[in-house]
């Protein structure tokens, strides 16, 4: 065997050995650096010099059904008269319509107000009948009657609860975490007592008053879908484009359902 073959042989051996070593000495990879934890998203700032307003009136087409009288004699503590608030119309203006910006805000987030929204029980009736609240914001529920009520929301997407509130008991503070429109609330002891809470993610909502009017302020410019929701008459949407500092009027009318 000549010198060359020895060299070749030896080098082959070394090469194989090296390969083997390389295969065995797989380097320990350094563990990935801990990912930075995400802070809770802060409210998207809105430039106060550009904000726009939407307002309008909601009308009821056709003759409004006469509100049904409610017999409250079952409980003498329920003083006064009461009538059904299903459809409240005065001079063709429809009250208790929940109006909110359904679409167009993109990924904006908003601060949840620290002050609660009030819900009163007075005269065995809810005040207001339709309520808007931001997700996570507290609803402060008071009982001004000399009778016991129970507050029983029956939500679709939030958690259900049912709590008793005796006369002059401390207010009950509750909040809802998820968006839900026309979430029914009732009192099992006074079957006529019914109201609706609307839980939304933005502060851009309003409820029409007795004259059917609403106003949503502080909107950044943009293209929006405004939804009008009524407990019995359903939902209607309208699109609106707001430029900076615009004030636009968006009216809506509901037809009597058959």
């Amino acid at each position, binding site marked *: *065997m*000549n010198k*060359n*073959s020895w060299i*070749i*042989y030896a080098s*082959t*051996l070394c090469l*194989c050995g090296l*390969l*083997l070593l390389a*295969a*065995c000495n*797989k380097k320990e*990879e350094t*563990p*990935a*650096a*801990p*990912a*930075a*934890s995400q802070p809770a998203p802060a409210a998207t700032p809105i430039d106060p010099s550009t904000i726009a307003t939407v307002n309008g009136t909601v009308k009821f087409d056709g003759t409004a059904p006469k509100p049904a009288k409610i017999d409250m*004699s*079952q*409980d*003498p*503590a329920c003083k006064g008269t009461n009538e059904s608030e299903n459809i409240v119309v005065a001079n063709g203006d429809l009250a208790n319509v929940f109006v909110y910006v359904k679409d167009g805000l993109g990924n904006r987030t908003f601060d949840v107000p620290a002050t609660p929204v009030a819900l009163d029980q007075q005269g065995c009736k809810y005040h207001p009948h339709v309520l808007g609240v931001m997700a996570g914001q507290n609803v402060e529920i008071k009982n001004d009657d*000399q*009778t*016991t009520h*129970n*507050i*029983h929301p*029956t939500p679709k997407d939030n958690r*259900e*609860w*049912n*709590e*008793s*509130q*005796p*006369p*002059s*008991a401390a207010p*009950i503070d509750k909040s809802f975490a998820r968006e839900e429109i026309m979430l029914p609330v009732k009192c*099992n*002891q006074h*079957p006529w007592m019914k109201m609706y809470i609307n839980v939304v993610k933005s502060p851009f909502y309003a409820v029409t008053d007795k004259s059917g009017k609403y106003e949503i302020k502080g909107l950044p410019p943009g293209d929006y879908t405004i939804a009008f929701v009524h407990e019995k008459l359903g939902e209607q949407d309208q699109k609106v484009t707001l430029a900076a500092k615009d004030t636009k009027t968006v009216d809506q009318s509901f037809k009597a359902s058959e």
Partner: protein
Amino acid sequence: MPDKPTPEQDPITSKSYAAYYLIAMVILMATLFWALWDEAWGQRPWKAFQEKWKERYSAFLNTARSKSVTSEKDVEQDPEYAKLKAQYEKAYQDSKPQAEEARRKLDDASARLLAVQSVFTDRRAYVNALTYELETSTSASAKAKKQKEIDKYKNEQATVEFPDGSKKKFTFPQLEETYSEIRDERTKLSLELGDVLKPVTAAKNKMDDYITDHMVDLTPQQIDGLKKTAADWDPKIVQINVAEAAIVDRCESCHLNVREPLKITAVSMEAKGEKKPDEYANAFTSHPEPELLRIHDPDKFGCSPCHQGNGRATTSVEKAHGNYEHWLWPLYPKENTQAGCQNCHAADMVLVSGDVQFQTINTGKDLFRQRGCNGCHRYEGYDRESEEITSIMQQIKQMDQEKRANVKQAVYLMKQADEAETNEEANHLNDQAVALRVANSKLDLRTVQLERTTKSLLQDVKKIGPNLKDIRLKLNKNWIPVWLKKPTDFRATTKMPNFRLSDHQIRAITAYLWQSALTDPLPKQPAGNAAHGKELFETRGCLACHSIGEGDQMTGGTFAANLTRAGEKANYDYLVRWVHNPRERTRPYCIYEKKDIGPEDYAKHGKPYIFDLDHSRCPNDGHELQVQNMTVMPSLRLSPEDARDVASFLITLKKKEPSDYPDAPFMDDPKLKAEGAHWIRQYGCSGCHEIAGMEDEGRIGTELTFEGSKPIERLDFALSTEIAQRGGKNAEPIKDAEDLARLPDGPATKPWYNHKGFFEHKLAEPNVYDRGMVKSEAEALRMPNLHLTKQQVLALTTFLMGSEETSLPTNYQYRPQDYRRDIQEGWWIVKKYNCMGCHQFIPGQQTALMGQQRYIDNPEFLPPKLLTEGARVDPEWMLSFLSNPALSVTDTNRNGVRSYLQVRMPTFSFSENELGKLVRFFQALSRQPFPYIPDMRPTLSTKETEMARSLFSSTAAPCLKCHATGDAAHDKTATAPNFLLAKTRLKPDWVERWLIDPQAISPGTAMPSGLFKKDGGQWVFAGPTPPSFQGYEKDHTKLLVDYIFQLTPEEQRKVAAAMPHAKAASAQPKTNHRQASAESGHPTSGGTR
């Protein structure tokens, strides 16, 4: 090298073999290295998995750690936590001077001890050595010498240098004494320090506990522990070895995170920058149902008993998963995983863990019964009643023969005795004759017992299809052949499968059915009010089982028939009888004589023609009769008028007129009858229907109890074998579009030559394996097309795949003997009668009624949830309620408890057997002791009664506003049961819990929570309490419970009268349960009880 001329022909120089050697050497070396590599890695793919795991798991833990730190910080910001922290700091500051002093003393003592110790141990060692020498010395002189030496050593003075620099000399005994003194001192000091620090430690523990209690994830310490385990990991086979069950599972060698307490998804195990989880990421997930692992400890159950696969294999993923031809039990595919449950849980009808239902396998088990599979296929545990009845009938027949033989033999023996030669012999023979008579009376008693069992069984045994003996009374004759042609054309959701019958088969079958059916007269019924019937139909709860409307318009349950076209097929008079009481039978059937008993049989024996559950003996031979229709449909206790109204409504439901069906005169052709009988037997119709003359036909299909463990060669793929093995473009033999849509994974493209493929194809299109075969009508596959949906095929396939003969020891089978057995047996009944169509048994479980608009609007009008029923009601009461839900014998057209509900708890006519099982089921489900022994309730003093009364009727707790009182005017608005029922119906402990938080017992109930609050250790009323409660120290809840349990009708009337506008209760509810159980149901019509 020597300098020599080389010869010319020197082979060494002329021809070199170096190249060959080199090649050989390279090959050899390559082989060597390959062998080494293969040994280390090739045969051990799990090593690569473990490397990857180390890498990715550590990376994952790092991110988990940082998240966990933030959440810990969140918890630390709680005011509660701040309070604990302040307490801790105060305790720390308070104890500081004392603790420091104690610690200083302790340190000093320790130092002194150390100083003494080093000298002392030295010298003690020397003394010990000398003592040993003394002990081993042989001579007395040597011993004495050694003793002297020891004494001398002990008296020597040793110097100890103390930490403060002072030096002292000690003899050995002094040294020993000093040493123990200082040691005792130190122990005392450290105890003292512990005492001083006790409040500090306690405060610190409270703080730590708060964090652990309020953190959802693991604490940083726990995560650090996991990280260390991962970092220190050495490649090794991880193995579960259970000798008693012969389980050796090495699955965890790759699936390293299976038992991880953190939830680990494939996405979180991805390598950085990769888009899709690779095989490693998928292997490193944690078990998706950690609760299951908790119940089935992997160290006992391993992995393969549930998942299948080859647990021992470690050389490749395919082999470990058993996906190769030499392994009989390949891993269940993901969608069929629940098949594994069936291996041990075949005796369970419902598998649920917490509130998680195992939907796939549960649906499979349910479908097997609901679609009548067990009408043709035996399956261990299903349809036990009919098997038991058959076996009892055989026993009774045998005993009858034995009795006759005994009588004969006795007569013979007595005759022999009379003629015997000696008195002795005569006496002996007479004794034998007497013994035979006694034996006969024993047999009689045994028969009585068996008859009793039979009675229960006859009540329990049901058929999935209707009784075809009644078709002449019940059906539009011309509709029958049209129906048989393809039942789904008439009613898309029917349970009746499509038998692919030819026209002449239909003619023959209908001819037999028609000509063999009963022709008894049916009373004519006047027409009812269809509008009222519609209202009743929609409100009484019919829609919990039945549906109405087709396609998207369908509402109601899927348990029973869709009634949209009922008017085309049904006869009104029969329908009235059916709606009034579906169990009412035209003629009783004697299973002993095997015939329908008519009035002539009763007349023969001079008996009136009355048969029902209380008159269930055969007039001919005294054996138990089948007196009910074998349907699960209960009686809704409608009045005859209401029944007519409902039937009048149902008869209006039609798409075309009954008269539009073409005439079917062949049904009266007697020549067709024999052929019809042949085809009925051929297709096993009597598996699901009662058919005259076919009552004892056996099942025609193969037993399926262990179908999943049949070797694949025994599953006949017929001409599809090759395409099933090969896969590819033409792998799918099913051509029919409807049938193709039933395949869970769509048309096959991959090879499907396995159990899953076989079952799925067979269920989607049963006769798929007849494709291309030349078969006569009699040879063609008999199994009908069950027109299943994808999900149903998936569920049944899963069920069949799990139907295996397990190799596990019997104690692995879930066959409990305690309360869990009651639960197991109860579910079969609950499912049998569709109790879950109305009631919620498992939190979150949807009932058929819940989805209907009427109940979405008014959920308080739903039937009650039964989540804690066993803890709520007295079992004895429950027994009486279940046998008669009206709680009355006379006033039956109502609900006994919730009279305010329109939906009706029907009368199911449960047998003694099923009643007992159901009551035990509910008690077991709530873990209640059985039997139930009620506590003695304390009698309230006059003062307490007054207090309770004032609370009971205060405006702040207006109990009677919602609870019924029995006064019709008041009860119109009632939404809760009458308190007078409480005493016999409820368990007091449960009532107290209910008063405190009803929402936790029945979520969504009209009864509000928050009526009581905890004040110190006492439950007090949350509203303003009447002044008499001043200074009352017992729980207000207990007081109210005791009051409710001693409430009398007079008391309730008094309270109600005092309450404004809640009028006096005029009547007490119709029952008290002892009365009810004593009187429970002796109706005259067949079937109710």
